[in-house]
């Protein structure tokens, strides 16, 4: 992990960053740094404080406490100046349904004081980038969820931002649409745009993030690269067992000692083991007959489960 010192000023610097809504603490004294060129993720379930954190970084939500520097400035003091250099993809698309695809991009460019001619030029380019050029003259309303998401991403790029904030970029999209979004984000990263994203999809975090923090109940519970987190908090492989209805409750202790750790979920049992196949053989040797049996590589989902005792998408 590159330390801030080794690469100069971090683009985002947060210490003890806190957000409260009345008595409710949405973000509880979190520390993190994001370096230029990084793809940095906030992974966590709904309500973990990811969106509140993103809105504070986006200089639209004042912090309750702690330190925060974005692009070298304090969002409380330099909001418009910071926002001029940010791209924002909010959780809901916030597109203008009364306007066409192209108009949505042009008027958004105007908010950054970009001339009409230049906004139109960039909009056309961006529609090509997100593969929506053939829909330029269409109204936004009939577009599919995936298209609207791509349009929102295109819109966030109109000011050529140094830092792109994406709040759950692919939530609600079908797998094909998700892969297209991922591909575009990957290309942006290749061009040097710093990405900060939130997600509750572990595969998204694994695909896109160089480094991430796991958030749960307003706090950061772990930090590192996806690989490092998996190595630290999970075993190499996981054995997933599904038992016929009613059987799982009667297992008491029959799986003990298999692998490093056994996790009982409502619908299945996870056995964490370096060698999943060996653990599967052992299950059969103990005379147990699961309905299905699956050996897979461990993922961030397992890390999250380990850290919080809960699954990411509940």
């Amino acid at each position, binding site marked *: 992990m590159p330390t801030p010192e080794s690469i100069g000023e971090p683009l985002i610097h947060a210490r003890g960053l806190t957000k409260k809504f009345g008595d409710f603490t949405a973000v509880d004294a979190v520390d993190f740094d994001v370096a230029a060129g990084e793809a940095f993720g906030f992974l966590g379930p709904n309500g973990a404080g990811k969106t509140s954190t993103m809105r504070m970084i986006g200089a639209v*939500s004042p912090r309750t406490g702690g330190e925060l520097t974005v692009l070298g400035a304090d969002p409380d003091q330099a909001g418009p100046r910071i*926002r001029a250099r940010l791209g924002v993809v909010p959780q809901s698309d916030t*597109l203008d349904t*009364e*306007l066409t695809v192209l108009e949505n991009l042009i008027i*958004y460019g*105007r908010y950054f*004081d970009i001339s009409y001619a230049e906004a139109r030029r960039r909009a056309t380019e961006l529609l090509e980038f997100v593969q929506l050029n053939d829909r330029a003259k269409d109204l936004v309303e009939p577009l599919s969820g995936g298209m609207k998401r791509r349009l929102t991403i295109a819109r966030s790029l109109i000011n050529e931002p140094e830092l792109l904030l994406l709040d759950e970029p692919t939530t609600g999209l079908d797998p094909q649409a998700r892969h297209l979004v991922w591909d575009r984000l990957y290309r942006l990263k290749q061009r040097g745009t710093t990405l900060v994203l939130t997600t509750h999809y572990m595969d998204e975090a694994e695909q896109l993030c160089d480094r991430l923090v796991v958030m749960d109940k307003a706090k950061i519970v772990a930090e590192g690269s996806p690989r490092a987190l998996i190595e630290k908090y999970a075993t190499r492989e996981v054995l997933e067992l599904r038992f016929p209805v009613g059987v799982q409750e009667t297992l008491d202790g029959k799986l003990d000692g298999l692998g490093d750790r056994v996790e009982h979920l409502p619908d299945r049992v996870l056995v964490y083991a370096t060698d999943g196949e060996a653990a599967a053989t052992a299950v059969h040797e103990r005379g147990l007959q699961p309905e299905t049996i699956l050996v897979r590589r461990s993922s961030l989902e397992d890390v999250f489960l380990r850290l919080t005792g809960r699954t990411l998408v509940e």
Partner: protein
Amino acid sequence: MSVVAGVRSAGLRIPGVRKLEHSLLVYRRIWRGTFFGTLVSPVLYLSAMGVALGSLVPTMTTFGGVPYLVFLAPGLLAAQAMQTAAQESSWPLFAGFKWNKTFEAMIGTPQGVRDIVLGHLYWLVVRVGLVTGVFLLVAFLFGAVNSPTVILAWPAAILTGVAFGMPMAAWTASRKTEQSFAFVFRFIITPLFLFSGTFFPIEQLPEAVRAFAWLTPLFHGVSLTRSLAIGHDLNLLTLAIHALVLIAVATVGTLIAFRTFKKRLVV
């Protein structure tokens, strides 16, 4: 970035102009739907109330010594300014907060709450200006206006609209649902329309109600607009009082809007 910086430094940044551009862009898409009402409503009101009903009403000193049509037209003008502004500050504005979330998108850019509030004010001026402009043209064709000072009745009507539109906008920003808008129109806007001097002088009202009418901005809007439209015996002091009341209400509404918009958007 250099392009953005270059463009930005090139011009003076006037707060709210981008939001106005947004409203105009949306209006360019939907104006056809609104234009029919803009044109037809004055024709209907002026022919039914002004010409048909007016032919039964003798020219009386109560109506300032002018035919009823001439008395009525500026009252309707001010009332339409009020209704248009209240309308623009209700559902369409609420959509920006809740349904389209246009304002959420806007504050993610260098635009801020001040831009959104002022942009809405500019938009009210444009939209009410358009509606009342068409109204005046129709009224002129009906022979309902003939004094040269009527040209001043136009800004007076726009001011009346803003005096309703900005307090209404401030209130709309504080709403969680759209349910109370119908209530406002039914129990505030419509009674004002009927009893603030639009159709008859408020001197016809019982004493107690008359005092109440004095407190409503529409009364001042109607009085100002009517005096300027008829153009007889202009009393500058009275005109100034009416105008100042409207300016005061519009200003207070705008100041409250800064607060309620901020409370809604910056959390």
